[in-house]
């Protein structure tokens, strides 16, 4: 098998190249052997150029070592290596869900509908913040031919469920009489168009998108600054509008606020459409979202955990999802029940506003204020017991919490020698074992500096 050659070649290359080069450039290639030619497919021209410039000779030498001149199991007479952009033709696309094709599509267009079956109205959590958007979406999905609402424009901040609603509409439509329902992220639409232009089938591209039953385009703000795409998109919208087909658009802001989008398109979005707004979820709704998301993974999230997480994570649905995934992963890993304590433990690092690295300066000021000493005294030559003790504790903390070397720590404490720092660390270690007060002070400061 041709791929066997490439696989042995990869084994050699992994030894020859740095892990970085290997994983970056070689890892992104796909290979086919045809008529004595090893064809390597790069994902884009930049990678192709890099590989051609820096790695072809390594690949050739690896091939040679795989076993030239040996007919069986060797390099199978690979005489040439070529690097090109694209995908090996025999590699088929992974089929996505909800594939229902009716008309012949031009090669530039993804054969899939783009819809994800997992997003439905049933698992969309509604509440005060999204009830209008949700109702409008259901209305549109139930009556796609409603002449009053050909363009549904859903806008709102990131991670609030716009994409969920779009897929829900699409999935609902598919259960009805609409057969050609297409969901695309705006970038994907642009890419397909560019590809159609390159393949000289822009006419077929336009014809296809103007003939669909429903078109769902996500994140239209990304059309900003892309004039050719905007023009094509405008004509597509017009055609669908004429045919009274449903168009659903999402955006992170109100149509008029999108910079870099031509006015006629903006007014198409708002004038002939129905802009509906999604607000961030309130606490109650966040709790319910968490509950439903957990349920989708077969987990009954206790109310106390829902409440605590809803209180702590308040930005948007994606953040909630990330936090929930982490809590579930940790519970599974530790084989423990989902409790508030476990959630706190799992999210401790993520919710802490700052990393745990403290600076020497910070340590000095926190230690000084807690122990009632002035920072200037810590750095001074003064040798009264409380000052010395505070200085030693701060030094030991600096050693524990920072990655500075002993001489650097000594410097920060009024230009002291590194042996002084070493002495302080030993002294505090000793005192913590014998003097409860020192131990308490130390632990309290440590907690304060790392929380």
């Amino acid at each position, binding site marked *: 098998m041709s791929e066997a050659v490439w696989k*042995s070649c990869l084994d050699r290359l992994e*030894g*020859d190249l740095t892990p970085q080069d290997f994983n970056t450039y070689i890892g992104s290639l796909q290979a086919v052997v045809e008529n004595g030619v090893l064809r390597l497919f790069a994902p884009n021209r930049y990678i192709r150029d890099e590989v051609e410039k820096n790695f072809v000779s390594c690949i050739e*030498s690896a091939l*040679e*070592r*795989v*076993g*030239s*001149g*040996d007919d*069986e*199991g*060797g390099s199978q007479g690979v005489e040439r290596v070529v690097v090109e952009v694209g995908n090996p033709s025999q590699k088929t696309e992974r089929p996505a869900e909800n594939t229902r094709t009716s008309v012949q599509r031009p090669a530039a267009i993804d054969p899939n509908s783009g819809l994800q079956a997992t997003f439905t109205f049933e698992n969309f959590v509604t509440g005060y913040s999204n009830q209008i958007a949700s109702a409008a979406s259901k209305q549109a999905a139930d009556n796609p031919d409603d002449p009053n609402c050909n363009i549904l424009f859903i806008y709102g901040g990131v991670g609030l469920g716009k994409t969920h609603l779009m897929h829900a509409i699409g999935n609902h439509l598919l259960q009805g009489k609409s057969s050609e329902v297409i969901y695309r992220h705006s970038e994907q639409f642009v890419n397909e168009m560019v590809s159609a232009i390159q393949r000289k089938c822009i006419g077929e591209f336009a014809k296809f998108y103007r003939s669909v039953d429903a078109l769902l385009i996500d994140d239209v703000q990304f059309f900003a600054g892309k004039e050719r795409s905007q023009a094509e998109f405008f004509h597509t919208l017009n055609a669908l509008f004429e045919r009274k087909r449903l168009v659903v658009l999402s955006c992170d802001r109100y149509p008029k606020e999108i910079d870099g989008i031509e006015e006629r398109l903006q007014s198409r979005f708002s004038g002939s459409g129905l802009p509906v707004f999604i607000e961030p979820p309130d606490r109650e709704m966040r709790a319910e979202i968490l509950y439903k998301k957990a349920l989708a993974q077969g987990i009954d999230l206790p109310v106390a955990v829902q409440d605590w997480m809803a209180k702590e994570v308040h930005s948007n649905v994606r953040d909630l999802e990330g936090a929930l995934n982490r809590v579930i992963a940790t519970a599974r890993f530790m084989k423990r029940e989902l409790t508030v304590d476990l959630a706190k433990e799992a999210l401790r690092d993520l919710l802490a506003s700052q990393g745990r690295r403290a600076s020497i300066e910070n340590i000095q000021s926190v230690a000084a204020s807690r122990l009632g000493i002035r920072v200037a005294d810590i750095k001074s030559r003064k040798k009264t017991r409380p000052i010395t003790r505070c200085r030693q504790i701060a030094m030991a903390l600096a050693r524990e919490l920072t990655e500075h070397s002993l001489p650097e720590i000594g410097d920060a404490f009024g230009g002291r020698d590194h042996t002084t720092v070493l002495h302080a660390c030993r002294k505090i270690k000793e005192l913590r074992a014998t003097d409860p007060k020192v131990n308490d002070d130390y632990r309290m400061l440590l907690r304060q500096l790392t929380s």
Partner: protein
Amino acid sequence: MKFTIDRDTLQKRLTNVQGAVDRHPQLPILMNLLVQAKDGTLFFTGTDLELEIETSVALDEIETGSVTVPARKFIDICNALPEQAIVDFNLDDDKVVVSSGRSRFTLSTMDSSQFPTVDEIGDATSFTVSATAFKGLLTRTRFAMANQDVRYYLNGMLLDIAPQRIRAVATDGHRLALSQIQTVTGVDEAKSVIVPRKGIGEISRLIGSREGEIGIRVGSNAIAIDIEDIRFTSKLIEGRYPDYGRVIPDASKCDKKIKVDRQTFRQCLERVAVLSRDKARAVWMNFGSGILKFKTEETVEREVAEDEMEIDYDGPEFKIGFNIGYILDSLSEIQDDHVDIFLTDATSSCLIQPHDDTDSQYVVMPMRI
């Protein structure tokens, strides 16, 4: 057990096995040789746990059995006997009696079942190669192996075996020697192993001036070599070997290529080497238009040696320092009349190879000026 053998045959076998016997072994029994008689054949085996050498000889009258005897003493006895002597070897209870003519030696023994053997080589790649060609490969590179470096992998030689060639690489971290021979090994895919320094020395010694083919078997943990009646086995050094390809400068990218007469070059170096007896053994070479100057200095007494030779070079003047021993080592393994020297700058590696021949390459790092 009991056998009779002529002294010359015995001496030849014992000398071959001797190399495997350590003077200060980890186990007392390793001071001994294993002597086995079975199926009309006599086997002698010595090992130091890392390598094992076994030799055999077919004898007419032989009484089956096995025993171990002190190697050093047995060999010394054999050497001390007259050339044409006939030797009787007789195991009597726990003693071995070696007798010849009126001489008689009673040797202590140790239980042969306690004698450690190197594990069978297991799944191995095997092929044959010309004895002289293989020995030449080792000779041209072995001087560059490290000796007792903490980096275990440097104390050995890399054998890189491809379907159509065998390549040997040795380096001590200061210089590197690479040589290859074109030979059909028939291996399915290239294989690289590191053979310990001692094993390389023993293989060279065992091949000696023998001609003909030798058999090589390479397993995952050991290498075995069959040379006539000798079976040599050595463990391999586990682990990775440095990527030697990166160390050898690309001759086409070196802006200074100088062809020199090998003998003249070598003689100049040998002369100035007289005053470079310091540990560092530094020699400074100054490449000028048409001339190459050499200089060494004895640092304590400030004695200076200088020499020069004509060369075919017209680039900018250029000065570089080397350990003179490293250059001489490389030159002594090149037979051609001319050598090519490739240089880039005073802190980058220098490539020396026979003129118009890339089967042997020597890389030497300079000394810091």
